[in-house]
């Protein structure tokens, strides 16, 4: 395999406290050296003025395959990931059929290999058929390669099942990723319950619906010693509960999506269904709490919750339009524009939350780091690039993004997966 030398980039690797302008050598699909001045590489990529980061890691990807391949296939979803700068994704079992057997895990791995874009890790179901009734064969799923468990799309609703899952996962120390929502409180809801929903007459989804479930999951994780990863946190209340739990030593981690730190429920005044997602866009105070949680470290991961939907589904009445937006191709630009440029996070913090921390939570060796011997997954970022989000510029099959037309700063210019260049922008 060819050797690649990335020269003169600002190499940031929080896993080894590295942040300096230097060279990095990739050989045989691995990181072969830092501070190398080897003129004998097959290819030299000049990274002057750029940031050289461990490959970005997406923890929350809805790939829709198997199932709704009209809106996304493996090939298009992973191509979108590459276009957004991601070298690894963890896909969520919100598929038809759900990923609850060894065979479906292997199907995912096979499709990922065929697409040959980025690495795909499998988050498998907690319960059989994602029904929330009995545990899936978690041990078999671990053997097949599952890195974590989730019934996302729905929370694991039954508290006893959740407690058993925490206990059972202790054998492999796998985390459970839960979508926190008490559904009795969100019946018919299309947006955050607050002043804006009151004005618009739209059924609301109160913050309490998330907070109550976050509290339950933390109590169950604490009492069993299990690991809970709260998916796409969105409320000030949940962030406060998580922060307190962390202080007590509960094994809880969490993540936030760009839309929850960039947009508020005011957007729904347009009645545009591209602002309809679950959890919903919250109040401005919640947006600020998300940013504060990122700053103080309560929130350790930034992920996209990439949820492709066909245009005709989103062109419906707000109650019929499905929840969710695409996010892979706007994530990095939103992080730079809304977190780095205003000074909320510095670059090492951003890279930690988009590479090192997801790899650590999912216990993936050789990911999220540029240490010698790690996988040669590298994302080169132009931190100054100004670009406008367009539907045509997206590789995802679905274009349901509220950011189309927005101008953002920062994007991936070179993406290397396992030592092979997958994206190369002029």
């Amino acid at each position, binding site marked *: 395999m060819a050797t690649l030398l990335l020269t003169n980039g600002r190499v940031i690797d929080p896993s080894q406290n590295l942040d300096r302008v230097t060279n990095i050598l990739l050989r045989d699909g691995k990181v072969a050296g830092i501070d190398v001045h080897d003129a004998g590489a097959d290819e030299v990529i000049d990274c002057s003025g750029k940031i050289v980061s461990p490959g970005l890691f997406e923890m929350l990807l809805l790939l829709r395959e198997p199932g709704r391949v009209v809106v996304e296939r493996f090939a298009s979803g992973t191509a979108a990931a590459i276009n957004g700068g991601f070298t690894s994704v963890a896909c969520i079992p919100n598929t038809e059929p759900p990923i609850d057997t060894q065979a479906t895990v292997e199907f995912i791995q096979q499709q990922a290999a065929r697409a040959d874009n980025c690495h795909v890790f499998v988050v498998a179901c907690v319960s059989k058929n994602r029904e929330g009734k009995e545990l899936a064969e978690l041990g078999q799923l671990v053997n097949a390669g599952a890195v974590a468990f989730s019934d996302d799309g729905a929370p694991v609703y039954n508290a006893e099942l959740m407690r058993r899952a925490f206990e059972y996962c202790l054998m492999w120390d796998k985390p459970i990723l839960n979508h926190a929502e008490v559904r009795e409180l969100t*019946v*018919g809801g299309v947006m955050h319950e*607050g*002043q804006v929903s*009151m*004005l*618009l*007459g*739209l*059924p609301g989804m109160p913050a309490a619906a998330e907070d109550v479930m976050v509290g339950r999951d933390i109590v169950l994780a604490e009492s069993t010693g299990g690991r809970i990863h709260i998916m796409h946190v969105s409320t000030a209340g949940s962030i406060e509960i998580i922060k307190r739990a962390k202080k007590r030593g509960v094994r809880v981690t969490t993540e936030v999506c760009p839309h929850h730190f960039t947009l508020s429920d005011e957007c729904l005044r*347009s*009645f545009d269904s591209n602002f309809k997602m679950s959890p919903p866009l919250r109040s401005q105070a919640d947006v600020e709490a998300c940013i504060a949680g990122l700053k103080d470290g309560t929130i350790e991961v930034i992920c996209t919750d990439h949820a492709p939907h066909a245009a*005709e589904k989103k*062109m*419906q*009445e*707000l*109650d*019929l339009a499905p929840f969710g937006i695409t996010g892979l191709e706007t994530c990095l630009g939103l992080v730079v524009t809304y977190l780095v440029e205003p000074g909320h996070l510095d670059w090492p913090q951003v890279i930690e939350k988009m590479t090192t921390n997801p790899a650590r939570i999912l216990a993936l060796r050789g990911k999220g780091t540029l240490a010698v011997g790690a996988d040669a997954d590298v994302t080169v970022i132009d931190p100054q690039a100004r670009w406008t989000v367009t539907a045509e510029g997206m590789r995802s099959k679905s274009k349901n993004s509220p950011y189309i037309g927005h101008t953002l700063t920062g994007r991936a210019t070179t993406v290397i997966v396992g030592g092979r260049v997958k994206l190369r922008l002029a």
Partner: protein
Amino acid sequence: MSVVTPEIEMVPASWTRRHLLGLEDLTAGELNLILDTATAFKRETAGCTQKIAKLAGVTMANLFFENSTRTRTSFSLAARRLGADTVDFASSSSSMSKGETVVDTARNIEAMGVNVMVVRHRTPGTPHLLAKSLDCSVINAGDGPHEHPTQGLLDIMTIRESRGDLRGLTVALVGDIAFSRTARSNIWGLKKLGANVILCGPSTLVSKQWEQFGVEVSYHLDEILPRCDVLNLLRIQFERQTTRPFPSVREYASLYAMNAERLKRAKNDVLILAPGPINRGVEVTPDVADGPHSVILDQVTNGLAVRMAVLWLISGKPMRDDG
């Protein structure tokens, strides 16, 4: 008949809207223009009983995805009084049941040469979605609990007819505020025209957050009753509620039904409005609904006048600078 009233000769240049989606966005000037135009139409058509062919060649379509008798009939009649053609689509008779999206249905109807589409839908924002997707004008005839602008206008017109001026009047909207589009349209319209608004109902159906918009919130009708010049009694929208907001209809009626006993404690000249359909015995007792304070049937007539005015302003012949 010959028309002599200038405001209905040509649409004034100050009116620039293509759609009427709600009262929240309207200025006091725009509200007064609609009300003045409606008053003129009512006068020139002997109380909306005669034709005045101002909109010959215009086609109005009713696109109703929720049941309605009075609003749909009122819009049709208003259009016909103005000489426009009308066509009716109800969701049961359309292709919605075949899986067509609402936008596609509306585009098909528009393609038949429709100039104005009157839309009622269970979901807030659907008229707004159609306004963005179509070239014709859209009038919101009720989008879920959000807005029902012509209802708000006809309520206000009825008050104005009786009192001349809204400024300083205290108007209570009583009942199911949370699920009422009539409430929202009334709040915006009344506030802009200078009335004091009180929202009164059970705490599960009236949010304190409304106070941030300059309205008073009360849970106790008997406490506010003596101060009110107007009571607008809203229907409980049982069909929109996912959980029961109060224990029983009997308990609701004991706290909020306008009856003869309560009427005694109200101002002597209090006006009783109800947007209808009314549930006799729930929000109002029959003796009050049919009594001397009630202007419920005036509201219906004024509904025609307001809808004529809105149709005319939106699709009538505009005043030109050179004219």
